[in-house]
């Protein structure tokens, strides 16, 4: 497990010393901040407009009208950004030949895959942590419910690690970062839009497509509901792609 720790640390350091992570985090915060500002502004104006009607006032809930859509927007931004964050993980090592160092050291493939996964997960964690500002803002000027907020973050985190798993796999099969990013972006988009075609797919296919869709499983979380199937879905997608990456590395050496 020493090798795992060494690789995780190296990945984190690489993210911290190269501009990629900073640029992506900045873009992420800019866009998500823009959404948050707009939603808060809209919520605020609605509150003022409805302040004379107690019935409508009771309907106005900051979790439902600000944080829930915000979490959905953030999940889409993550989908757009994560292929760019994960594309270099294996592709770059292949192109520069540093993979030869990794594979001839006394570390296992599993340690290499997990180390890289944890490195990228660190960036995800930092991103989500920084968006905590939006929650703090809510607590300062309103009184949002805590559980749906935390569940929303849990959902984003779970979705994020699944994105990383997919990105990691596509990075491992090519030495071109652009190809890696395109493939994982395509895969993520596909998993996003699957449920759309579910509407037209007929009764037998619809539940399957819905089950496979990324965002169907995210829906309930910002409302404070944690379904076991959702949890299992994200964890198994992550595990599946990490396993696929590891198997690919293993087979590559034997070809």
């Amino acid at each position, binding site marked *: 497990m020493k090798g795992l720790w060494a690789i995780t*640390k*190296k990945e984190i350091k690489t993210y911290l010393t190269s501009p990629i992570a900073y640029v992506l985090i900045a873009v992420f915060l800019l866009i998500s901040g823009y959404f948050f500002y707009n939603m808060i502004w809209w919520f605020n104006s609605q509150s003022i407009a409805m302040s004379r009607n107690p019935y409508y006032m009771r309907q106005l809930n900051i979790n439902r009208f600000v944080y829930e859509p915000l979490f959905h927007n953030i999940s889409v931004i993550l989908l757009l950004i994560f292929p760019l964050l994960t594309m270099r993980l294996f592709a770059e090592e292949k192109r*520069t*030949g540093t993979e030869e*160092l990794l594979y*001839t050291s*006394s570390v*296992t493939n599993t340690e290499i895959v997990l180390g890289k996964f944890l490195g990228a997960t660190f960036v995800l964690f930092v991103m989500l942590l920084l968006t905590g500002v939006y929650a703090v803002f809510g607590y300062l000027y309103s009184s949002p419910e805590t559980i749906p907020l935390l569940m929303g973050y849990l959902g984003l985190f779970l979705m994020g690690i699944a994105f990383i798993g997919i990105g990691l796999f596509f990075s491992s099969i090519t030495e071109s970062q652009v190809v890696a990013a395109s493939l994982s972006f395509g895969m993520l988009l596909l998993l996003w839009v699957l449920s759309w075609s579910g509407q037209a797919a007929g009764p037998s296919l619809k539940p399957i497509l819905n089950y496979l869709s990324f965002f169907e499983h995210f829906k309930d979380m910002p409302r404070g509901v944690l379904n076991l199937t959702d949890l299992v879905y994200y964890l198994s997608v992550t595990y599946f792609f990490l396993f696929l990456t590891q198997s690919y590395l293993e087979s590559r050496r034997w070809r």
Partner: protein
Amino acid sequence: MIEVNNLTRKYGEKVAVNNISFSVEKGKIWGFLGPNGAGKTTTMRILTGYLPPTEGSAKVAGFDITKEPLKAKKHIGYLPEIPPLYNEMTVKGYISFVAELKGVSGKERKTAVGQAIEKAGLSAVAGRLIKNLSKGYRQRVGIAQAIVNNPDILILDEPTIGLDPAQIIEIRELIKSLRGEHTVILSTHILPEVTQTCDGVVIINEGQLRASGPLEEIQKKFSEENGIYLETEPEISEDELKGVDGIKDVLKSGNGYKLFWEDEEKGTKFLNEFIRSKSLNIKEWKRLSSTLEDIYLKIVASDKGGVK
């Protein structure tokens, strides 16, 4: 230390390495010779566990590289043809990362990193980013990472390629200084490098082993000239030498003679007796041999000529 048995590696239909066997003793430096595409890099990649063999086996430090890869890899330091460097790291940070990757524990790591940096002559640039280093320094960083875990076996793929003459000499000296403690295999196509630094040699061409063994043995085996060069004080005449039993032919060469044996054992005995009887001083007595370059060219050329 290194034992290679019937090693074969195919890439699809193409056979890169074909049924190679050789072994290297502990503490020696062995040169790996062959033209481009001969299979040198492939063999080295198999020895380091980067590629598996299609057939055959390789034992490194007593461990089979395919059956116990992690144990074997602990004893290996490897410099690939292109040094595996992370440009965004500092020299020290990089060497420290490699040490950690190779399982050098926390306490020893600092000393190990310091020693590797010193041995490779990198002290002056230890804090610099690798991307800002010149090619010679990058090569040194590559060597430093290979020796950081103090491996029993060092495998260096063309360690002096692309360096200027002064750098080549420096790296060569560095490799020589590793003799004894480490067993070294280095690949090259600079032949004087092998004569100057190596104890033994493996010559491969088109994936096949053409010759392997200690340098002297190879030179003896492949020498066309079975004889000696003799220089004495005072000089003797050609006719006198021709009269010695066991000597086939005598040729004047510089201040001495080239003597060719009819029968080496007999010739040596009678020549010694003859020198003693004449009370001559021997100024030089050395075996005539082809240079490694002659041998190498002969082997490679014979393959090209279709002699198979």
